[in-house]
């Protein structure tokens, strides 16, 4: 939509930087906003915290002015709807293999006729005009992860789904799936990432990617990925803490 926050930023030529919060702590979300990130993802798949922590993190995201995405535990329509009702602008759904898997996620995100999201936007209606479902559908971000061999094999079909707004590449899982090792710099992985970006562009689907560190992320910014994460909160903290210890304790 013309003025849908976040979607407009994603459509710009500037890659957006997304913080990745695993701690489930609202203060961390606020800190990421203060640091200047463009968006935040609350990770419920591998992150800590429960539903109550998620709601607190989403409240913090709104206070910090950060568009918030949630990665649910699994590709489950109930978990997806629950995250959206709690105020997430979108979801990043893991463990997708087929176009049918992806389509079920899109349908869980979008209201009819595009999908079958259940009505109950208790917190999310603070942020969107829920009297017009087309506008809400244009606001929400339906994103699936491309991290399995199946998802790569079925990429074209997945990207052509009506209502799919974005794909997020997880190189760590993708490396495991394609090479049997966690070698995110393996040529198969780099080629798959390049292919996903190219195909997503062709289909007008936003392309997001997780980078473990700054060195891995630099070429991704140059390549023009729409949304990039550089490390999760816990790796940023561990990295900074490790540096202090190495400096003073050797």
């Amino acid at each position, binding site marked *: *939509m*013309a*003025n*849908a*926050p976040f979607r*407009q930023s994603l*459509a710009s030529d500037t890659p957006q930087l997304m913080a990745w919060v695993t701690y489930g702590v609202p203060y961390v979300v606020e800190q990421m906003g203060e640091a200047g990130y463009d968006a935040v993802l609350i990770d419920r798949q591998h992150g800590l915290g429960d539903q109550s922590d998620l709601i607190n993190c989403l409240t913090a995201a709104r206070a910090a*002015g950060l568009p918030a995405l949630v990665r649910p535990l699994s590709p489950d329509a109930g978990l997806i709807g629950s995250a959206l009702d709690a105020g997430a602008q979108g979801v990043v759904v893991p463990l997708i293999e087929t176009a049918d898997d992806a389509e079920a996620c899109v349908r869980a995100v979008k209201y009819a006729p595009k999908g079958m999201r259940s009505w109950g936007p208790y917190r999310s209606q*603070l*942020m*969107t*005009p829920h009297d*017009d479902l*087309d*506008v809400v559908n*244009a*606001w929400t971000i339906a994103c699936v992860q491309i991290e399995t061999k199946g998802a790569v094999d079925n990429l074209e079909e997945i990207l052509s789904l009506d209502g799919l707004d974005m794909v997020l590449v997880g190189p760590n899982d993708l490396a495991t799936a394609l090479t049997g090792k966690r070698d995110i710099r393996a040529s198969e992985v780099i080629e798959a990432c390049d292919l996903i970006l190219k195909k997503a562009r062709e289909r007008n689907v936003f392309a997001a990617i997780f980078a473990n560190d700054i060195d891995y992320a630099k070429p991704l910014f140059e390549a023009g990925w729409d949304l990039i994460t550089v490390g999760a909160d816990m790796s940023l903290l561990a990295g900074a803490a490790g540096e202090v210890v190495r400096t003073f304790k050797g």
Partner: protein
Amino acid sequence: MNSFDDREKAYEKKFAHDAELKFKATARRNKLLGIWAAGLMGMTGDKVDDYAKGVVLADLEEPGEEDVFRKIRGDLDEAKIEQSDHQIRRNMAELMDEAVQQIENERE
């Protein structure tokens, strides 16, 4: 404010700090704009609502509001309703006033 350009600038400033208000108010403005244009074209009843919904949908096409302007411009031309570009844009600005007021009143 002397012109709708000034008014637009004032809103951009206000909206810079309130992206949610901008989003909600724009959607509401588009609906009001659709109702206005439907009236000019002599529509009544459900046709007005359907047309207004079409204007809201037109704004989903691309960033900015030229997509909305183009739709209104094209539909009024097709219906041979005389309205200058200036009149349409002025009305878009005035209806944004109303939309913001409506949304802010609903917040209270």
